[in-house]
């Protein structure tokens, strides 16, 4: 094989396969010729080209999700050697072998390493993670945002809905209804935006329902796992304060909805 001629080194990979949604998982072992600067995705591409296991048996190609290949889209997250992370930005040189790949099982597994992250997108809809500007007439310019605020809000806006924080969180699972860290942090982001803040109370009330903000158990795994370094636990604590105030406003029927 000419690719292997490079170094002759083979990368040992173990993958948790699953054929159908809800089906049983099973491990398969592969050996892939090493190339300089390889990432996990290039290993998976080699297997796709030549789906043969280490024992010489032929198998089906491994299914996985990917898109941007530069850690901004969030599609290629999987559990690599026990840690949820992006397979595009995880380099083989930084991993111990055998490299063990598993799907993020906190989500429903569609096939092999593909998971269904719908839960997160539905959560973003639930908390209205957008700036409402649609109207029947031109609303004109919105209020200005202070530069200092914009700078830290930018950090929150780096969230790519990759699901790593959800996988890391001990309170997010199919048996629990917790909305999870990523959508919560988006509430803080859009409540910070001067135009977004115009429906601040709606977002706070959305996370004060079942499976909302209060289901956070403060394990702080999310902030440790986030590939973009988003201060998720700070967002959660800040929302805790905002909802404390909102709770009293709701209870006493305050007309101070958004200030």
């Amino acid at each position: 094989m000419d690719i292997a001629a490079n170094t002759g080194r083979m990368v040992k990979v173990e993958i948790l396969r699953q054929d159908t949604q809800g089906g049983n998982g099973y491990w398969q072992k592969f050996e892939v010729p090493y190339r300089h600067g390889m990432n996990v995705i290039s290993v998976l591409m080699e297997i796709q080209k030549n789906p043969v296991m280490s024992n010489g048996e032929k198998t089906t190609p491994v299914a996985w999700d990917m898109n941007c290949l530069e850690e901004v889209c969030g599609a290629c997250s999987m559990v690599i050697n026990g840690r949820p992370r992006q397979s595009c930005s995880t380099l083989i040189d930084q991993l111990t072998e055998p490299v063990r790949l598993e799907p993020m099982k906190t989500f429903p597994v569609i096939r092999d390493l593909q998971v269904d992250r719908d839960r997160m997108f539905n959560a973003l809809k639930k908390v209205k993670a957008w700036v409402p500007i649609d109207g029947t007439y031109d609303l004109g310019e919105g209020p200005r945002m202070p530069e200092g605020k914009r700078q830290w809000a930018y950090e929150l806006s780096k969230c790519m809905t990759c699901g790593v924080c959800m996988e890391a969180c001990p309170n997010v699972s199919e048996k629990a209804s917790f909305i999870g860290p990523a959508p919560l942090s988006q509430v803080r982001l859009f409540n910070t935006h001067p135009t977004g803040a115009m429906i601040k109370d709606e977002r706070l009330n959305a996370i004060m329902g079942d499976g909302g903000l209060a289901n956070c158990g403060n394990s702080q795994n999310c902030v440790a796992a986030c590939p973009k370094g988003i201060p998720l636990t700070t967002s959660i604590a800040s929302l805790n304060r905002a909802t404390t105030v909102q709770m009293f406003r709701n209870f006493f029927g305050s007309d101070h909805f958004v200030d």
Partner: protein
Amino acid sequence: MSKDREFLWRRLHSLLGVIPVGLFLAFHLSLNFTAVGGEEAYNEATGVMELFPHSLLLLMEWVIIYIPLMFHAFYGVFIAFTATPNTGRFSTYRNWMFSLQRFTGVFLVIFIAWHIFQTRIQKALGAHVEYDMMADIVANPFMLGFYIVGILSATFHLSNGLWAFLVSWGITQSPQAQKVATYVTNIIFVILSVMGVAAILAFV
């Protein structure tokens, strides 16, 4: 549970853990600590409780202790069993605290149920609460061990719960504030633990 009430139940759970349950624990351990001063000092201190009219004492016990404690315990068991501990994959300090909080919580439900049976229910059945009652209990080395683990679980659960309370109500927000709260609550853990263990050893 009715729809969309979970937020309120969770906040209530957090609040009741500190007020009144946490305050009661601090009071309880302080009262026990008088045993370090000897049998007489302990009997005198606990005897003060006898000065309350019985009906008032019962009312206080239900309102300040049993009802909040039962809600905190049973809702807490529900919270503990909906979690999926993953300290194997994420062995950070906070994740260990998360798991230990749930583990000690479930253990405390068992310990406190036993403790109430052994003391309060025996009192209701006619036993006299005094130094000798506890001395008899901890004369059994297994019981002494069980009580020490129970006391340490309670002091841990309270001090770590206090840390979580500060986050859950939005009092400590920044990582720095939460770090300071970690130090402060750890000091509280040490103080309450020393008091609690010194007290139980005073009965041996």
